[in-house]
């Protein structure tokens, strides 16, 4: 395979701009480019952009599946914010995100660093770490429900043999343990994705930087802090927001493992959206939940972008 030096990722290649002369940069040229972009833009507009805008609009109406909608102003938002279930869902979603994202990001990075070392068997380890990614969420949920089974589960068998007092520890049936248990499952399921992306990033960092640092007497930690971390900047910009968003969107795992229980301790925002929209058929209020979810993830991401920009 040939060696392709990539353009600096994240920026558009300026060389292109230089080689294209002004004669080519005509309306004709623009038209060719737009032709190439049309298929993407059509699907994107029809199934993402328009629905997103429509969702904002719908959150101010009382849409149902049938019947005519009317404008209700901020009613959907006030009833959403007055709903105890909404706040519980929001709290749970935040705790879940707080539990999973740091491990998914730092753990993914740690695994990538480990698998990038010259160790025997690292390819097997990498593959095994990535395999859960190929398992669908309903299977993940039911598999871990079996592992967490209070009386015959795998986890309690080993817990019981190490600490006999914890032999019948409730996991998914306990208000305190259910959410952390779902978080552990999620970390197992998702960490491989972040690992792969960081691993790809690590392989882009020139080895000479490390050699030069070693000559200058930099410690392993210093090399990590001043070469590895900044070298992965673009990966952080991708991995951190995507991990936050996917954790904020948690639904499938709880749907199969706990169905939001016990006593709502694993009830999440997307479950709230689903139950408002499809069980109670309040499409307007469900849209309001969707708008809220979008606003929250957007705020998070903007903060992260700013933090990352000032840090590196």
């Amino acid at each position: 395979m040939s060696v392709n030096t990539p353009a600096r990722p994240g920026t558009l290649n300026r060389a292109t701009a230089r080689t294209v002369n002004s004669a080519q940069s005509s309306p004709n040229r623009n038209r060719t480019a737009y032709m190439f972009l049309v298929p993407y833009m059509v699907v994107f507009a029809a199934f993402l952009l328009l629905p997103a805008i429509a969702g904002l609009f719908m959150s101010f109406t009382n849409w149902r599946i049938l019947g005519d909608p009317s404008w209700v102003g901020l009613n959907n938002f006030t009833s959403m914010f007055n709903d105890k279930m909404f706040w519980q869902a929001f709290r749970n979603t935040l705790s879940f995100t707080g539990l999973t994202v740091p491990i998914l990001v730092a753990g993914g990075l740690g695994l990538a660093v480990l698998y990038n070392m010259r160790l025997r068997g690292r390819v097997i380890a990498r593959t095994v770490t990535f395999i859960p990614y190929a398992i669908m969420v309903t299977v993940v949920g039911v598999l871990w429900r079996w592992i967490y089974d209070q009386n015959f589960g795998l986890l309690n068998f080993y817990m019981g043999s190490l600490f006999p007092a914890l032999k019948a520890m409730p996991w998914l049936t306990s208000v305190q343990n259910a959410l952390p248990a779902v978080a552990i499952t999620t970390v197992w399921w998702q960490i491989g994705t972040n690992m792969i992306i960081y691993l790809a990033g690590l392989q882009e960092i020139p080895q000479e930087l490390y050699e030069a640092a070693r000559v200058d007497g930099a410690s392993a930690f210093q090399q990590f802090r001043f070469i590895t971390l900044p070298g992965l900047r673009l990966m952080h910009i991708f991995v951190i927001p995507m991990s936050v968003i996917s954790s904020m969107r948690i639904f499938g795992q709880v749907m199969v493992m706990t169905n939001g229980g016990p006593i709502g301790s694993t009830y999440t925002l997307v479950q709230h959206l689903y139950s408002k929209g499809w069980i109670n058929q309040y499409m307007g209020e469900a849209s309001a939940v969707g708008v809220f979810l979008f606003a929250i993830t957007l705020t998070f991401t903007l903060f992260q972008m700013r933090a990352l920009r000032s840090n590196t």
Partner: protein
Amino acid sequence: MQLTQPRLNATRRWYKTGAAYFLLIGITVVMAIPVVWMFSTALRPEEFVRKYPVQWIPQDITFENFKLALDSYPALVRWFLNSAFVAAATAALSVLVDALGAYALARLEFFGRRLVFIGVLATMLIPVEATMVPLYLGLSRARILVTDFGIYASLILPVVANAFGLYLLTQFFQGIPKDLEDAARMDGSTDFGIWWRIILPLSGPAITAVLIFSFMASWNNFLWPFILTGSDTTRTLPAGLATIFGGISPSSVRYGVVMAGAALATLPPILVFLALQRYFVQGISMTGIKG
């Protein structure tokens, strides 16, 4: 002092390597346990499923559970085929629209390029759940969801415009040397010809990565198919399995059969994935030097 320094370093290095191997093996084992446990449970006769102490290798291995799973849930096969079809169609369409768009972004100079690029990346931040309600209402009011064909189309099209794929391919296309393209242009090749005959054939790993990525995203997609599909004809595997797994109470579950069903759903994608994962890693690393 100076004499002992090298030996000290050697010992320290030895500890470090030891610790690294310890971590490597430990993590691999922990990550592998759930999957191995799934297969181990599936291969066990029902009376040995709920039994302590745990036996990793069942005494008498049986395939009875697989037969039972297929007998008790005959729709499994249909769900599986639906999922495979929907995911394959999504992946193919995704690669097509992403690769076309990426060519414009990576190789052509046009008015509004930066805006389009940033705008597309920003859409990765929209949680699809926020678009789900209006999309569902629109499709249902337009009476698209009354036919099976309409449902399949609604399962596929919303996930086709894949910003990550577009980004990945744009990056990859930018790395392809210009000279081939210039030569082709001299010979009077059109942009479409360059895209088809030069860019695409040189982008194998990146295209494979986007294929796998969108296939997996669709294959794992849960909530949207769960909402959209009401019958076994159109149900995808995750949505179908939820109808089996969601309702069962923990005490009555026959985990042998359930794990057999889960294993049947999991084995094919794992095998395909193992076969292709090399390209996946290569494609993401965007350079293509590790081949």
